[in-house]
């Protein structure tokens, strides 16, 4: 994949099994977001193919994609923001709003349904954006640093929350992150990309038991995996 004559991705070969939670990490500007755009069908590769269930992905609409910015629309209430994706694909407003409200209720957020997004905290905005993505009910979730803008503590909460949402969905998830702990805590498999042009530096299965919990971060097993990731990233372990 080349953008403005800069080669961004160079021979990234990945097969993701259905139902896998895959985390992509790599240095900034490594092309993680570009890869996600390719998977979403938002961009076409210059060389190679993106396939899903053996069928080439040629246009967007098959996966639920969540960008780095939450993009909650200020003219829509929380419930209407959650239903945006469904409405965008032609679901009737009534039915979309009903499903959105049900999703908010399931996660205990119904009291915010009619609030404008400007009134929400950063963590709450991320939750709403994540619900908007999840509500599409697609079998693939592509999350581009969904918690990158949050403070460490809120981020922790959201990671736990994502585990809950993901458990509900039974979808294949690709999460782009630059947080090694986040990747290990959430994913079944972590792929480390090199600097641009990106290749796969390490493909690491995470054999930590599920359900995962924050406490696992202090285990020896976790530390061992983390060390391997940091090594692949070119950062020496502390």
């Amino acid at each position, binding site marked *: 994949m080349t953008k403005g004559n800069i080669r961004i991705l160079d021979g990234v070969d990945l097969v993701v099994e259905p139902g896998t939670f895959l985390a992509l990490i790599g240095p900034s500007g490594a092309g993680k977001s570009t890869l996600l*755009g390719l998977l*979403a*069908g*938002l961009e076409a590769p210059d060389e190679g193919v993106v396939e899903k269930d053996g069928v080439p992905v040629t246009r*967007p*609409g*098959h*996966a*639920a*994609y969540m*960008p780095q*910015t939450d*993009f909650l*629309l*200020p*003219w829509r209430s929380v419930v209407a923001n959650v239903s*945006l*994706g469904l*409405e*965008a*694909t*032609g679901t009737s407003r009534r039915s979309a709003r009903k499903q959105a409200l049900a999703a908010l209720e399931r996660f205990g957020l119904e009291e915010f349904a009619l609030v*404008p997004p*400007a009134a929400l905290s950063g963590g709450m905005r991320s939750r709403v954006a994540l619900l908007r993505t999840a509500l*599409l009910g697609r079998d693939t979730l*592509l999350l581009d640093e969904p918690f990158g803008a949050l403070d460490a503590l809120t981020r922790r909460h959201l990671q736990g929350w994502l585990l809950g949402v993901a458990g509900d969905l039974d979808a294949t998830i690709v999460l782009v992150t630059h947080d090694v702990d986040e990747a290990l805590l959430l994913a079944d498999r972590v792929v480390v990309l090199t600097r641009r042009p990106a290749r796969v530096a390490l493909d690491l299965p995470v054999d930590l038991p599920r359900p995962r919990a924050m406490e696992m971060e202090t285990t020896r097993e976790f530390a061992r995996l983390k060390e391997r990731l940091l090594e692949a990233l070119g950062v020496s372990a502390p």
Partner: protein
Amino acid sequence: MKRTLPSRVFPAALLAVLVLAAWELLVWIFGVPVFLLPGPSAIAGAFWESRELLLRHAGPTAGEAVLGFLVAVVMGALSGILINRSTLAERSLYPWLVVSQTLPTVAIAPILVTWLGYGPLPKVLVVTLFCFFPITVATVDGLRATDPDLVRLMRSFGASRWRIFSMVEAPGALPFLFGGVRLAVTYCVIGAVVGEWVGSSEGLGFLMIQDKAQFEIPRLFAEISLLSIMGVSLFLLVALLQRIIAPWTLKRNPSL
């Protein structure tokens, strides 16, 4: 801090009272003849005396102003969308719209009257010419301001071109559009009067020409005041509409 209506209106009202009082006082002290500069009380008197005549002529002027303005809003928004949608339209149409704004509308008005007669049509057209350009520019800027990553998100949902426009681009352009509309609405009364000056048989512009010729200066001032009231009312109406249709556009701008 919650600002109440009286506290917002009070400074402007106080200034108006002070200016009017000073005006009245100076006219009285220096004995300025009423055909040069009537005091506020003389103007108010003329207003009251000729209230039926004034209101009768205010109707057509307001009608032309509002109609021309509405045509301008529709035309301005449509041409803005077209320019945003099509590079060809942007390259071919936009420069000429800019050129059209450099032509003095006041000078075009007589030609329009020659072509279209003394009826309301040339006035409506003059109003539209006065008003549409700021709306076009605002629409173009507003649509251009859409975050490309938001469009990407909509595309990732699988949204059609139309849904991206109607759900994201158009509402996102509304703050800009209302900026242009608020600017344009202050021109529309001027446009109607200019149109009437050139040739008409009714309207406040027509009355102004008559009163100037007959040295009915207090009533001339009353007409100017009425036009100003009309303009301010239309502006407030637009602000109210904005508050109802697009309240989120006012969030960062609590003074409006």
